[in-house]
């Protein structure tokens, strides 16, 4: 036994604290002297919709017949003040993504897919392109802090206006579009020299708080003759107060984006460490709306990590009126597709892990302004893929709603849900499965 090395040299032990990623990041930082910038949303594991389950119908409630009995999915947005609220056929919208970060054909595909399914797309930093307006039947026009491309004619052409205060990937952060993606057209739309790194501001230039924002919204309503729904988009941080203040400022719709929500580019430390998961943000936001008697009057759109119909159904059951997808929509277009793995490897990534959207070298031709790469992407086929995906999300949501006995997906409610973990139970405000225990329910305050 004394000669047996197995007892002297056990297998190497890796640290849980200094795990593979942490060690690689220290080496990378030491070699380059600069933080890592990437796209995508938070990649760390956080409590999410997977930690919730639906109970379905049973002795005490009866289900609806699949494929037979009606389960409606439509949603009206902007019913509070707008003369022309938006009616969407499905409660799934496409999140704001800029022309600049995405190629023109990719934006077109988003418009095509969404329009086939009767839902909306959203512009992004950099303004509205004619192609986007043409391809999107319902288009939401973002007003961002940078105001790149902001134009009153586009405000009037839009179907709704979304004032972006923040986004889930980086609440409190601006943006940076690196020079390699600043083509002549992108530069012209943003009134900046071609090829420079474009900093997008983190604060709006002409208002600083909710009292000012209320007046800003009044101006936008005056300019557009009170026709357009006005959304306020916030990154999930202090959802109870932020939602209440958005209502106070006069929003028709609040868009709440969790930390899993994607971005075109920001520091990894920002993406992974600022903001909270969408699961933790929905109930406080809904509570704020209920406390103000504004639930269903000011609509709530949530986003950040929506992948399938179960996620949609869970978000709606927690009180949202609709969800928004960004990353999932890009994946539906072909982003991170397995057949491109070899090409992703050539640029130091892998299919399924690609997140360097800011570099503009996307082999799928989606997050690039390189004409060669852009040509690889067919906007008609891409639009069809997105429509298929949206259709599946909708069918899955209906499947769950019918199983819970609901004739409209908005009839899903927290009582239909239980949680698999104590954390999820506390965050979502639903009981731990098999118990009637909602951690923190007796002292819930935000």
């Amino acid at each position, binding site marked *: 036994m004394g000669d047996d090395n197995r007892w002297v040299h056990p297998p190497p032990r890796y640290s849980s604290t200094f795990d593979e990623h942490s060690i690689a990041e220290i080496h990378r930082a030491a070699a380059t*002297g*600069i933080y890592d910038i990437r796209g995508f949303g938070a990649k760390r594991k956080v409590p999410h919709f997977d930690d919730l389950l639906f109970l379905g119908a049973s002795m005490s409630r009866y289900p609806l017949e699949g494929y037979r009995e009606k389960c409606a999915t439509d949603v009206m947005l902007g019913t509070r003040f707008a003369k022309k609220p938006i009616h969407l056929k499905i409660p799934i919208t496409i999140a704001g993504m800029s022309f600049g970060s995405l190629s023109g054909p990719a934006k077109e595909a988003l418009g095509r897919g969404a329009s086939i399914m009767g839902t909306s797309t959203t512009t992004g930093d950099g303004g509205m392109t004619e192609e986007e307006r043409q391809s999107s039947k319902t288009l939401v026009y973002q007003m961002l802090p*940078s*105001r790149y491309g*902001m*134009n*009153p*004619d586009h*405000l009037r052409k839009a179907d709704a206006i979304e004032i972006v205060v923040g986004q889930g990937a980086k609440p409190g952060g601006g943006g*940076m579009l*690196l*020079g390699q993606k600043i083509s002549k057209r992108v530069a012209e739309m*943003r*009134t*900046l*020299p071609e090829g*420079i*790194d474009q*900093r997008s*501001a983190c604060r709006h*230039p*002409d*208002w600083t708080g909710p009292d*000012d924002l209320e*007046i*800003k919204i*009044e*101006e936008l309503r*005056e*300019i*557009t*003759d*009170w026709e357009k729904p006005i959304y306020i988009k916030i990154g999930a941080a202090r959802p109870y107060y932020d939602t209440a203040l958005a209502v106070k400022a006069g929003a028709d719709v609040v868009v709440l984006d969790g930390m899993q929500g994607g971005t075109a580019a920001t520091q990894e430390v920002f993406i992974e460490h600022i903001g909270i998961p969408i699961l933790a943000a929905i109930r406080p936001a809904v509570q704020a709306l209920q406390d103000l008697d504004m639930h269903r009057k000011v609509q709530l759109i949530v986003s950040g990590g929506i992948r399938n119909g179960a996620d949609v159904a869970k978000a709606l059951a927690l009180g949202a009126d609709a969800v928004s997808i960004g990353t999932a929509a890009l994946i539906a277009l072909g982003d991170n597709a397995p057949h491109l793995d070899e090409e992703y490897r050539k640029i130091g990534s892998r299919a399924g892990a690609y997140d360097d959207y800011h570099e503009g070298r996307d082999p799928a031709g989606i997050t690039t302004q390189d004409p060669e790469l852009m040509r690889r992407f067919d906007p008609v086929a891409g639009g069809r893929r997105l429509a298929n995906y949206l259709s599946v999300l909708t069918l899955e949501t209906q499947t769950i709603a019918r199983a819970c006995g609901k004739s409209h997906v908005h009839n899903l409610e927290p009582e239909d849900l239980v949680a698999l973990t104590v954390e999820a139970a506390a965050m979502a405000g639903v009981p731990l499965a098999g118990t009637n225990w909602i951690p923190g329910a007796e002292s819930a305050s935000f």
Partner: protein
Amino acid sequence: MPTIDLEITSLREFNKMLHELAEGTNDTYFRVVNPRGRHAIAAGVDAPITVEIDGNAGYYCAGMNKRANIIINGSAGVGVAENMMSGRVHVKGDASASAGATGCGGLLVIDGNASSRCGISARGIDIVVKGSVGHMSAFMAQAGTLVVLGDTGDALGDSLYEARIFVRGKVNSLGSDCVEKQLREEHKEKLGKLLEDAGLAGEVDPSDFRRYGSGRTLYHFHMDNLEAY
């Protein structure tokens, strides 16, 4: 010559009337009385008309203006002529913060002083301030011109892109990457034209100004510039 009394006509009715003017209308001059600091007066106009406001205006007066000539016989609140596309806005009194913010075109003339962030994120607007401007003016300004006859607050032109700044008085401090540049004849000529457009022909000598612009050192993110961020 319609006179609009905002104590009688609601702001909504007035703005709607301006938005619905037919192209080539004979109604090209509107006088507004009793503005009493209301917000968004004459916002979103897209017509070659003149609107003269007798009194003080609130926030975002003449916001996103296109083509109109808007005169404020008083002072203006935050964001006067914000995101202006074209036309002319003349504030006879003082302007609050963010005057001409993100403006794309046209001319904004302020007879008095302008507060902080005057011309912030400007994208082509020309602004002439006969008094002084507050801190962070022309912050991240991309294109256009800011002319200040008086003094400026701190951090003038911080993170400036391609906008031009001319100051006759004292600059309290320059922001990151904003540098003084030589005032050449072609600049004096352009400045002279702008001063003329602002009604200052013959009153002010362009040679008395100093020119500021972007050092262009922050155009590409670079570790060596970290202290500037």
